[in-house]
């Protein structure tokens, strides 16, 4: 059964005693635009969901009209900050004790009068129906719990990378997050509320309750309360975590004196739960009884789940319900049980946002006309609380209090995000090279590194908005927010899934957006683009004078030298800031001499002697020198060889990375100077697409749908990924079904050290997939 537990009478008494720990307007955000409410009232927690819109400042670039050009001096394009409205889903979780206070607050801030209905689910929905209708003036419309649960589950599995995880109590990191599967179905959901429901989910709309058990969370709570005279569920779990079940349970060795070898049953196995309490004439401690009860129930549920998984031939089994809900003790015992009964064939999976599933589902039921499932959604790290610490040492009581208000925000992304069709195995693709949740040393460094860089980022943000006097104040708020996130991550590296350099960068971008710094580098990018453009023709001319062989090498060096110009890298931003004249030529001298740290240039060069590629997809990195003097000449050469080129750039700003909007203007002005580029554009052999991302890194499993379509249509046979963020922090190990080229300069001495190189070491990784049917065509004759 789903969550049927009513409010414990002991907590409902002092509703008003507790004060809300955060200012309510930081919890119930964007209420003024809120519409489509949903509420899920469980045994102890209420989850409120609403859809709202957020006004963002976004930086837009626009080409100057030639007629007005003289008025603006040297600039190629203008930057304007515009208001953009994006859709955001808000989910707030709080204790039932706060329900009245919260409803009052929501009522006071509710402006939108179109809203007439609130979707409701959960066992407490009918109990609070009257209260909700009275307080909010909305009609309560009840939705089936299980349907909501499944809808919510599908939604998070589809939209939140690292939603599911395996729990391993004794491993270096307790959480092992799972990569998003391209196809989330079929799966088994074992919902452990007061009872247990086992549901097989085959598609968005097709699911079936295939079984269940009456021995669930209610049994643990009810029986536990009787045995230990302990009232609260959390307290029972705490007792259990301190107890020894072996004094209450009859083990195999209590019967056999050792193991039952012929059946492979070890001596420590429980033969009979509570078996000793039937015979031993003594008092048992509360802790020991609670522990024995926890084992009994977890093992029983695990066994049933395995039997159903086997019968229906399912290997993905998710566990949820209030019995699980982030409690390390129950996740551990359930995991243990599943491992025991399936001998490791099935893994117990848990969900980061498990507590929100019902609310998300109820919301989706009410929002069907908005078609939320046709979009991709992304977790807004700035507005989401993240997973609570579940360190076993931590008192569950403290956990409950510190988690008084928990929030999840999901931003609607433009269109739907899909896999790069060229991934060798989409289901095993992991974008990130290093998982900082597992690598404590690397985690220490990067958290320190991002904290160190914070001053610079704040300075940059303020400088980007010289006309806005309150920018300094906002920037300060940004600093606090991001520093707080970093502190949280220091203690709970798993808060938003696996901690990676990418997630640290993305969190920073989310926080900047939160405080209306949509593009702190816009001015710098503009200046550098303008400067680099002036040098373009000269650079191309120099290259054209080289022999073919020399040119190929010079082009690669050009891309690499261009990549040194990166404001995202601390080592470089110091240099760039102190010496704006730091030139392209100087950068080339700074580069490591061959052989590089990773050097497959010879193979690449051999390959170039062969037939041209059909189509190259180039994931570009920085603005300025990088894109204009490094990438464009390289693209020009590819076009001259007869290769079509698709340039993929970010949809939105991140650091000084070139955005799709900027790149369009840049490409046009280069085309005006360069007939090769011009012809490419005219003949549609040079195309620009947006990646769908606003991150300095690259997740090849979440790309814009159009990009994927272009890849397929043009029969792309070469993928080029440039830069530290896209080719080293992510995708370093990505395996593609076509040739790939990963180029980057290491601009971080710690990372260089880690990889066995030094500052400005070069990674040039040219890879050809293992021979397959079409490899013959690619081999140079």
């Amino acid at each position, binding site marked *: 059964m789903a969550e049927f537990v009513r409010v414990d009478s002991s907590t409902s008494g002092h509703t008003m005693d507790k004060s809300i720990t955060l200012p309510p307007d930081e919890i119930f955000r964007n209420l003024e635009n809120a519409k489509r409410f949903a509420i899920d009232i469980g045994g102890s927690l209420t989850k409120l969901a609403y859809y709202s819109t957020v006004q963002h400042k976004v930086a837009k670039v626009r080409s100057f009209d030639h007629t007005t050009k003289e008025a603006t001096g040297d600039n190629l394009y203008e930057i304007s900050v515009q208001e953009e409205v994006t859709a955001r889903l808000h989910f707030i979780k709080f204790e039932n004790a706060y329900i009245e206070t919260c409803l009052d607050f929501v009522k006071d801030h509710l402006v939108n009068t179109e809203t007439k209905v609130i979707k409701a689910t959960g066992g407490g929905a009918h109990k609070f129906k009257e209260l909700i209708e009275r307080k909010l003036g909305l009609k309560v419309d009840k939705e089936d719990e299980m349907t909501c649960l499944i809808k919510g589950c599908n939604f998070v599995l589809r939209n939140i990378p690292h939603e599911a995880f395996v729990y391993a109590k004794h491993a270096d990191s307790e959480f092992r997050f799972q990569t998003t599967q391209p196809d989330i179905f079929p799966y088994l959901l074992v919902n452990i509320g007061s009872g247990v429901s086992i549901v097989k989910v085959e598609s968005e709309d097709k699911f079936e309750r295939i079984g269940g058990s009456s021995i669930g969370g209610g049994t643990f709570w009810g029986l536990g309360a009787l045995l230990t005279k302990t009232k609260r569920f959390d307290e029972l779990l705490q007792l259990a975590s301190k107890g020894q079940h072996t004094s209450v349970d009859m083990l195999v060795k209590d*019967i056999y004196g050792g193991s039952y070898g012929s059946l492979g049953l070890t001596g420590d196995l429980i033969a009979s739960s509570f078996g000793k309490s039937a015979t031993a004439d003594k008092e048992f401690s509360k802790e020991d009884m609670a522990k024995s009860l926890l084992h009994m129930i977890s093992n029983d549920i695990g066994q*049933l789940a395995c*039997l159903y998984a086997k019968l229906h031939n399912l290997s993905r089994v998710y566990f949820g319900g209030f019995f699980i809900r982030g409690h390390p003790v129950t996740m551990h015992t359930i995991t243990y049980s599943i491992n025991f009964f399936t001998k490791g064939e099935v893994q117990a999976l848990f969900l980061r946002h498990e507590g929100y599933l019902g609310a998300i589902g109820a919301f989706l039921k009410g929002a069907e006309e908005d078609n939320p499932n046709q979009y991709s959604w992304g977790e807004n790290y700035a507005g989401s609380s993240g997973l609570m610490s579940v360190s076993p040492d931590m008192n569950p009581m403290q956990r409950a209090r510190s988690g008084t208000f928990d929030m999840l925000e999901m931003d609607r992304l433009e269109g739907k995000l899909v896999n790069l069709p060229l991934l060798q195995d989409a289901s095993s693709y992991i974008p990130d090279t290093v998982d900082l949740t597992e690598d404590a040393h690397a985690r220490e460094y990067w958290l320190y590194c991002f904290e160190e860089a914070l001053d610079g980022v704040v300075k940059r943000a303020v400088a980007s908005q010289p006309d806005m006097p309150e920018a300094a104040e906002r920037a300060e708020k940004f600093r606090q927010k991001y520093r707080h996130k970093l502190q949280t991550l220091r203690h709970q590296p798993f808060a938003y899934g696996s901690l990676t350099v990418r997630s640290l960068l993305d969190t920073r971008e989310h926080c900047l957006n939160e405080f209306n710094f949509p593009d702190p580098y816009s001015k710098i990018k503009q200046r550098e683009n303008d400067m680099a453009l002036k040098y373009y023709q000269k650079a191309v001319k120099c290259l054209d004078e080289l022999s073919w062989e020399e040119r190929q090498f010079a082009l690669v060096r050009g891309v690499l030298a261009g990549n040194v110009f990166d404001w995202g890298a601390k080592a470089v931003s110091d240099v760039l800031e102190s010496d704006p004249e730091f030139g392209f030529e100087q950068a080339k001298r700074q580069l490591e001499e061959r052989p590089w740290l990773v050097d497959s240039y010879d193979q690449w060069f051999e390959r170039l002697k062969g037939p041209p590629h059909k189509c190259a997809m180039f994931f570009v990195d920085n603005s300025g020198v990088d894109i204009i003097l490094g990438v464009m000449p390289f693209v020009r050469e590819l076009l001259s060889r007869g290769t079509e080129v698709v340039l993929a750039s970010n949809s939105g700003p991140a650091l000084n990375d070139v955005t799709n909007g900027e790149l369009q203007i840049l490409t046009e002005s280069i085309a005006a100077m360069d007939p090769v580029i011009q012809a490419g554009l005219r003949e549609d052999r040079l195309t620009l697409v947006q990646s769908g991302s606003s991150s300095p890194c690259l997740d090849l499993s979440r790309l814009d749908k159009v990009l994927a379509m272009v890849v397929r249509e043009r029969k792309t046979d070469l993928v080029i990924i440039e830069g530290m963020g896209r080719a080293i922090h992510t995708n370093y190990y990505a395996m593609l079904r076509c040739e790939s080229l990963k180029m980057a300069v290491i601009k971080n001495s710690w990372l260089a050290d880690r990889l066995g190189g030094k500052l400005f070491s070069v990674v040039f990784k040219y890879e050809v997939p293992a021979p397959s049917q079409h490899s013959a065509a690619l081999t140079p004759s």
Partner: protein
Amino acid sequence: MDKAKSMIDKKGASGPFHVNNCQSQRGFHANGSCCSSNTFGSSTGGPNSSTFENMHHLHRGDDAECNGSPAKRCRLRRRTESLRRSRPPFPWFGMDIGGTLVKLVYFEPVDITAEEEQEEVENLKSIRRYLTSNVAYGKTGVRDVHLELRNLTMCGRTGNLHFIRFPTQAMHHFIQMGRDKNFSSLHTTLCATGGGAYKFENDFRTMADLELLKLDELDCLIRGLLFVDRVSFNGHPEGYYFQNPSDTQSCVKTTCTLDNPFPMLLVNIGSGVSILAVYSENNYKRVTGTSLGGGTFLGLCCLLTGCETFEEALEMASKGDSTNVDKLVKDIYGGDYERFGLQGSAVASSFGHMMSKEKRDSISKEDLARATLVTITNNIGSIARMCAVNEKIERVVFVGNFLRINTVSTKLLAYAMDFWSKGQLRALFLEHEGYFGAVGALMELLKTTEDP
């Protein structure tokens, strides 16, 4: 008609000797004093050969010189055995030492000749008298008189098979008694199965100078079960099931035998539970088990109600109402949960009402005992049903001492099997519930001493 049936039953009663081809010959032709070497062995013939097949073999064996045929081998063995006269000396015991209970079967020969009587040593006589003239031993030992198998022929001897049990906790008293009665002077091996055979082996040796022959409990369970079913329960079938299990009014206990017993899912509910898929007497696998068994029922009952014995716990359970403790589907939905086809009367959460303090304060011990019993029983039923479906076996046989004097559970299991499988599965029960392991151990005694 009745007469014919009773004839068959009677043949069934001497069944063990029909079951194995060689013995069948013996059973019909040889003189009673000579016992087949492999009555309970498996070297020849199928364990589930029918009487008819046996007679067929008998015929072949008589008129043909089949080289190496079972019949020939049997004759050879008979010859060697008759030379050795290797029937094990009395007393004949089989013992199953479980986690909670020790089950003891004792074969009391009733065909003792005057000569034998004279030869019989005094302590052997005293053991026989002690066991057969009492129904209770010490504070905790009990003889289940109603289960006694009378006039049974085993190994060429006729006698009564007695069924005795006592708590495993009293094991050391038992061993001491064995020492005091100088048991070791009678014979050196005592066939024992169950975990205690391993756990107490050393105690038997050091305290009473007794050597245990340790036997696998599942082997013994299956062998004993098939044997008792074959010999029948004093002329009546050993097995039973419930007709109309889903209707408490017309639910009737109906006897039956395990004709063509294979494959069967055997659910042995002792302190814990083992679930076996049995394909033949010697071909079976342990599918799974659960730690929620009889020990859990009694253990929780003791903690929740302060009771001390299984009988007390069951007595309380029989008077209680579990719906005061368990949360039902209708307690949550006001009726059936139609979306999932769940009846309102189905238990949604065992002990679910006990989350509320008011309900905890107002509950009776009887209700708690009943809820514990229902919870454990339903859970076993649920796991057994899933195993039956996974193993594609339709017949589920429940045994073990948890079912002793426990009609609440047997009826509930019968109902659960029938209801949740929509009539596909049938639950069968056996009268000697928990004693099959001990019987199997005794059979091993008779077999091993005769093996070359």
